[in-house]
Structures are given as structure tokens and as C-alpha cells.
């Protein structure tokens, strides 16, 4: 019996932000859904299929942390079945990788401000990600 490889309905049903889903939501959802269809060894080097729980973790993090005008992330599946969200624009590099269903590794580098931050965060402790995404959104506006 195959395991369903899709996102939960409550996440697929677009949450609303003042009645309108942000521009990043739809494309990001589609990318995550496509990533979930990748088979074993999808990269030719033995990569695992994406873990649906980690895809959910990534999407929940965005719903909770990303401003409505946040730029769309690049969705990157990882060798171990995780999800890496990346933004590279406006002098900023931001990478958020799922390490588990409640843990992330975050890298942030802001060339203009000369600021760099790297570390692990857990669910409930997303304040730095909110700050980084807010800065990115403001600059990209």
C-alpha cells in the first residue's frame, strides 16, 4: 500500500491574508507538491523522496513567518528528503532548511548591512526568520 504523498487539505486550501492569498503562496504550494512526487534517486546520486512531513513543516513555517508581500522562495528538495527554501536577491542570501518536523537550519547574509547569521531554530522560535523575511520583503518592494 502506497503512502499518500501530498500536503494536508487544510494547507492546500489557501489560507487567507486579509481575504487574499499572498503571491508567493500558490507557486510555492505547487513546487512543494511537485517535489513530493519525486521518486527515490531523483538526483541520480541516491536522493531520498521528499518527506511529506518536512514539506508540511516548510509550508507551515512560511505561512507563519512570511509577510504577505514576501518574494517567492526557491523550493529545493535535499538529498535526505528535506526541503530547503532559498532567496537570493537585493543583496540578501536567505536559506532555511528543514532538519526535522520542528527544526530548521537558517543562513542569512545581508551584503548591504554587512550582517551574517547562521544557526538552528525550532518551531516557536521563528523570530529571526520573520525578521529576515521582513527585511527581504521591504527591500524587494
Amino acid at each position, binding site marked *: 500500500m502506497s503512502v499518500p504523498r501530498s500536503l494536508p487539505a487544510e494547507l492546500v486550501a489557501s489560507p487567507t491574508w486579509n481575504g487574499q492569498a499572498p503571491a508567493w503562496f500558490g507557486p510555492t504550494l505547487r513546487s512543494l507538491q511537485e517535489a513530493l512526487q519525486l521518486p527515490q534517486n531523483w538526483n541520480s546520486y*541516491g*536522493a531520498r523522496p521528499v518527506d511529506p512531513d518536512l514539506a508540511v513543516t516548510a509550508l507551515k513555517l512560511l505561512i507563519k513567518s512570511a509577510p504577505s508581500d514576501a518574494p517567492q522562495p526557491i523550493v*529545493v528538495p535535499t538529498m*535526505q528528503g528535506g526541503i530547503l527554501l532559498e532567496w*537570493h536577491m537585493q543583496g*540578501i542570501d536567505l536559506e532555511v532548511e528543514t532538519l526535522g518536523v520542528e527544526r530548521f537550519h537558517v*543562513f542569512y547574509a545581508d551584503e548591504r548591512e554587512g550582517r551574517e547569521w*547562521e544557526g538552528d531554530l525550532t518551531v516557536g522560535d521563528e523570530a529571526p526568520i520573520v525578521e529576515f523575511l521582513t527585511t527581504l520583503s521591504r527591500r524587494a518592494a
Partner: protein
Amino acid sequence: MLDGQTLDDPSIPDDAELWRRIPPWHFYFDGKLGRIRPSKAAFEDDGDGSPMSVILAAEAGQPERALEGHEGYALAVITAGLARSCGQQIVRDPTAEEPAHAVVIGLKTDSIKRRFAREARWAVLPPDP
């Protein structure tokens, strides 16, 4: 060093080009750098825990051959010198399918993977979308 043992093959010069296949999910346009580049996620050890696979360009054929059977892939290049400067060792590991196969042995921290991704060049560019 691996368990105190030097494995690095000195017959592979620092300027040797190492090819790495990059699947479509692992390259994108970097708006900060203004060019298409691989993600750091493309420079991991293999899924079974084996060291990262590469092909020694000088001992391989045309780069396009390395992508046969891998539609949509690109081929990135890093140098042996770059890998060594990141604490990696390069060891020949010929296989029946790829006599020029080698492995890059060593701990790949995020900063090392990021450096590979940013300093990589293309032997075969990503196909047009």
C-alpha cells in the same frame, strides 16, 4: 584525513576539473549574483552515505556524455584545488560505467557546500526552461 589516514590522490592536480551532475531541482537564477548557479544542496555526499561522486574531466570524454540518460540536467565544475582548500580529499573510484569516476571525501559543512555552489562553473549549461 580519514581516521588519521591520508587518502588524497596527489596525481590529481589542483587545477583538475571535477564534474558533478546537477538535476533540474538544483539550479536556479541567483538574483544577487545575476546568474544561474547550483544550489548548495547539489554538493552533498551520496544518499547512501558514500562520499560525493564526481567525474575527472581530464579522463572523461565530452562533458555531454556525462549527462547521457539524464535529461534536463546540467554539469557543474569545481576544481580539485577548491575541494582541497575546503578540507576534502579526492580519490579515484573507477566504475564499470564510468572509469573516470572519483569521490570527494570529507565533512561537507553548509559553508563548504555553499562555497562549492558559488564557485562552480558550468561544463554544460542548464537547458533553457
